[in-house]
């Protein structure tokens, strides 16, 4: 069997931290009762464990625990935020604003609402991938109910000016949803201080299990439920709560944040080593601003090669991606929004470094690219 490829795709998914797997373990059995079974002790113990985990998550994000709604992941959280808020504020207006470089879990719910008759403004970004808050200000209308802008881009890692957007939305009384899937767990994020009304997050992006995420609501913000049933989560999201996954989510977030500054600094050094090494090969350009940007992200376009061949050749050695995993191979809409052609977007690589990435991985990755590049050109 060939050696496993070097995994540099931590923005698609991270391995579930063994300490998180261990933290979940007892709750598969001890907490096996249904947390909604409040009549009996196992059910109450399970419900209490959910609330402890909710409190930990709330504390990590500096929000009241009542604002935390557990979901199956960021996609569900984004859908609940966007459709749920617009449905709850139908009388206030039917216009929403988002950005061309958002994840599909944001863009598609917005387009769904547009098909139902909502006005939708999709703002462009600059060549650096950043949204100009003045552009956003100009797009707001009296009937605008929601602005959705991600914290960190999943493909190019750039960090949007959340505080400025939050302040602007606050002044206009417009709800601000932020898809935080790529930033939560990588750096401290306090949504309320940034004026974020709705924040989506996903466990498996920061060492937690797949199948769990959350929507975090600022006090006073309500959403219409999108899953109907037993009225769990304050009527905002029905369905039996997956206690072990919830415990795993809280544990993973605490662990991810505990060493986030040191990890970020280390990954930034590795990322720069990768970037300088790639740039030294010639004909490789970085996509998106280098600052402000996630320290563990790099996205480059390889000039003069066919994208399909590039990815096919690299695949054996390197686990990187051409864009969002959720787009399954279509040329990146994010890179095209920066002004790249389809061909250039297809010939691009996203590197996502993570906790397990070391210097040797970077050097091997560089060696692979430098070895394969001449033949590709």
């Amino acid at each position, binding site marked *: 069997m060939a050696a*496993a*490829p070097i*995994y540099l*795709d931590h923005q*698609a*998914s*991270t391995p*579930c931290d063994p300490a998180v797997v261990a933290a979940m*373990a007892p709750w*598969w059995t001890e907490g*096996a*009762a*249904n947390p*909604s*079974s*409040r*009549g*009996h*002790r*196992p*059910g109450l113990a399970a419900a209490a464990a959910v609330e402890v985990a909710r409190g930990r998550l709330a504390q990590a994000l500096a929000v009241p625990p009542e604002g935390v709604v557990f*979901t*199956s*992941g*960021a*996609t*569900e959280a984004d*859908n609940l935020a966007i459709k749920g808020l617009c449905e709850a504020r139908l009388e206030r207006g039917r216009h929403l604003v988002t950005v061309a470089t958002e994840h*599909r*879990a944001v863009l*598609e*719910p917005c387009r769904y609402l547009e098909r139902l008759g909502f006005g939708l403004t999709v703002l462009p970004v600059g060549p650096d991938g950043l949204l100009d808050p003045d552009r956003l200000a100009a797009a707001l209308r009296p009937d605008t109910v929601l602005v959705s802008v991600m914290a960190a881009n999943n493909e190019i890692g750039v960090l949007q000016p959340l505080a400025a957007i939050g302040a602007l939305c606050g002044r206009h009384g417009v709800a601000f949803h932020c898809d935080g899937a790529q930033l939560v767990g990588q750096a401290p994020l306090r949504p309320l201080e940034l004026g974020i009304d709705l924040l989506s997050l996903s466990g*498996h992006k920061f060492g937690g*299990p*797949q*199948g769990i995420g959350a929507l975090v609501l600022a006090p006073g913000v309500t959403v219409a439920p*999108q*899953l*109907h*049933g*037993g*009225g*769990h989560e304050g009527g905002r999201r*029905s*369905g*039996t709560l*997956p*206690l*072990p*996954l919830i415990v795993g989510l809280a544990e993973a977030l605490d662990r991810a944040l505990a060493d986030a500054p040191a990890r970020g600094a280390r990954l930034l050094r590795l990322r720069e080593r990768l970037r300088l090494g790639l740039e030294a090969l010639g004909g490789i350009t970085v996509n998106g601003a280098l600052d402000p940007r996630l320290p563990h992200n790099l996205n480059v376009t390889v000039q003069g090669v066919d994208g399909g061949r590039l*990815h096919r050749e690299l*695949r054996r050695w*390197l*686990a990187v*991606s051409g864009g969002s*995993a*959720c*787009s*399954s*191979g279509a040329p990146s809409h994010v890179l095209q929004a920066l002004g790249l052609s389809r061909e250039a977007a297809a010939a691009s690589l996203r590197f996502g470094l993570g906790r397990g990435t070391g210097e040797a991985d970077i050097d091997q990755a560089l060696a692979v690219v430098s070895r394969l590049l001449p033949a590709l050109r």
Partner: protein
Amino acid sequence: MGLYLDACAATPPHPQVLAAMAEAQARFWANPSSLHTPGVEAAEALERCRQELAELLGAPGHRVVFTSGGTEADNLALLGLGRRLKPGRLLLSPLEHPAVAQAAAQLQREGWQVVLLPVGPDGRIDPTDFGPLLAPPTRLVSIGWASSEIGTLQPMAELARLCRDAGVPLHSDAVQAVGQVPVDLGAVPVNLLSLSAHKFQGPRGIGALLLAPGLEIEPLQHGGGQEGGLRPGTEAVALAIGLVRALALRLEALPREGPRLGACRDRLLERLLACPGLRGSGAQGQRLPHHLSLLLRSAAGVPLCGRSAVRALARRGVAVSSGSACSSGRSSPSASLLAIGCTAAEARSGLRLSLGPWIDDDALAPLPGLLESLLPTLPAADPS
């Protein structure tokens, strides 16, 4: 945990399921949508789960859509199909779980007419009454395979054939049935089937919707193209592996475990019915083998509060339920018991005991005496 008799609310995962998931967390943690090797391996593992699940349910041609659980599967079935059809009449069993009943209520807000099917005192739908109701404007039917609260099994094969002959799609919430009784979609032509892993010793946080070939539905969530575009969001591969392993283990054991639990249940019921004041609810023969449901009465025949009984038993280390866990936050009378003709007071006097593989006669031995001793301490059920 004391004596756990609430398997219909949740079951502890089988140790082999936990082992399979632990292995999967280490091997198949990559994003199944990623095109690189770890991603492709995760995707292959997920596809094997999909095929295996369909085969375990006798439906190799059905599409399997993994969801976060039974509630999402029910919502996806009703809203996903309902929103694709012209609003018409939706026939609904009156014994449905809130996940189905509330999804139907949402369809009603979107222009559908929701009609509850008549059931007998045992909770069964009579196929003779049912057939004529399939005439226009009926466009969709949803009937739970087995009732969560009273354990009644519906005559699904007959009902499904009638729906098929009338050309009306049938959804069945089989959350309580899968893993407890044979569910063979090859023999029972249900078009949409919901299930949830944690009811058969699989993990929490995953379920599935099975769709008959050719049936098109709308997604509830929008985003990436996962699950054939019907359910975007990164798939939880380890949970899917846990679900399939749990069901495979269950079905392998079912031929002996079903009759064993059924016999345990029957012996327990016989002893309980010997206590003055206790009555059974739901069907006698056509019921889930692990399910026992009672109506509580005083010696004088006054209905007693089921929720108080749940709490009193809990204080003595016995976990049971007064109805579906998902409606336990409310104190309204049970809709299922009202539907089978109970008065409001009787509909607050329900008690459900549901057994699992961890139960044997010895574990159940003290229960009738305990319950009998508690009855005089229970308040009367609210008659309003």
